[in-house]
């Protein structure tokens, strides 16, 4: 499963408005891609750790998220976690005019679909 996600992640193309993204696996490893200045792989990987912590704490608070958005003044981080614990985080520009929403939604849909495909 991890190989499948890795392959998809490596082959996926950036869409307009994406700054960086990464996948964190349940075994605590991660793969990261960055395009914007200042988004180092180390920092993005560290951010994904925080995202996973947040999913766990939300669960503890009986809040079942499908997607979470961390809104900062300079950028937005959107994240989804699959049933198998794999987590995708995407850093986006806050300028909505510069964001390819269709591309973003397709990216998340593909991420979720991979789990279903693997289960078949």
């Amino acid at each position: 499963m991890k190989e499948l996600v890795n392959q998809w992640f490596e082959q996926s193309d950036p869409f307009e408005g994406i700054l960086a993204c990464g996948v964190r696996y349940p075994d605590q490893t991660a793969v990261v891609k960055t395009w914007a200045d200042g988004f180092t792989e180390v920092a993005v990987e560290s951010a994904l750790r925080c995202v996973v912590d947040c999913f766990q704490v939300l669960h503890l608070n009986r809040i079942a998220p499908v997607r979470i958005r961390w809104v900062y003044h300079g950028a937005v981080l959107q994240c989804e976690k699959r049933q198998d614990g794999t987590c995708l985080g995407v850093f986006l520009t806050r300028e909505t005019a510069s964001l390819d929403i269709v591309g973003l939604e397709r990216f998340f849909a593909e991420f979720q679909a991979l789990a279903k495909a693997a289960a078949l």
Partner: protein
Amino acid sequence: MAQRRKRILFVDDETGLLDFIRQLMGHFAGPAWEIFTAPDVSKALGILQEQRIDLLVLDIHMPVVDGLQFLNLLQRKFPNVLKVVLTGEATEHHRATCLSNGAELFLEKPRDEGGWRSVYATLHELTRFQPEEGFRGVLRRVGLQDVLQMECLARNSSLLKIHAGSVHGAVYVKDGQIIHAQCGSRAGEDAFNYLLGLTGGEFDVQPYAAPATQSISGSWEFLLMEAARKRDEQGMTTPPPGQSDSGFFTPAPVPAGERHTSAVVPVIEAAVPAAEVPWEDASGAARGPSARPQVDELLVCSLQGEVLHEWQCTNTNGRVGFLEFLSQKARQLAQGLPLGEFDRLEVNGDGSRVVAQIQPDRALFVRTSQVPPEGVEGTVSP
């Protein structure tokens, strides 16, 4: 300039392990760390009251007061102390519970020296998170008064810059004595009392810079007491308008210490921000125009974790704890990234939505759900 030795406190009921940790960590850290150990919570609290501890490492399984209860207490009494859980029972449930109770890290007790070296390296990195100079006092259950008290007790020299909306002020501390305060045209004790009466805002502790004049000569203990007395007498100074530019729900000013439980359903149009990106429900389909949001729960708390306003909140402590966790995590997440200030977390669930916002002077938690328009039967439409 030589860096101050970091003071690390280990709390574990296994005294043999504490001795081992003291030796090993002392070996790894050399003179960079001053290591303290405590076999129980009461001794740990004694050390915390006497020493300015930078990092506390605790086990969660201890008799009488266990680590979770202790974490909770620490979060209230010593919010600025970094907290790490080091346990032999590292379950996911424990991990989430500890993180939500203020722990920065949740580590498993290692079984070999290499593992202990990793623990040391992790703790060392964590202590570096604490800037030597300057920090933001946002939603850490710490007030300006607490920081001033700590600076004076430690006989530090520092400059506290305070911002609240259009108000900008500064308090000068030299060798543990408050020597000057300035806020606009106010100076001296007048400025000091005004600044300490602010209900919210931000402050930064910066390196000491000599003021143009010295306007205060009294003892810091008296000044702080007098400021607290004046604040109680006159009521809180209302932060100036324009402090928040987010357009979020802002409750009417509530007197300090007075919890307000409203029987009126709050208006949420202003409380829940419109997402820049169209929000979707769990199924991935965009909301229909017919569905309308309904507020299920709302909580507003101060930076000190005091509930200012709540409506239908079933677990107030849990929500306050979550907002504190969020404040901490949002800060950690942004480290090393050009994200700017954190504004809010939006959580989209199966037919429900949560918005948790951290403002400079308060935090907000709103949970809403989608309800069908009147006349439409059945479940929530997407």
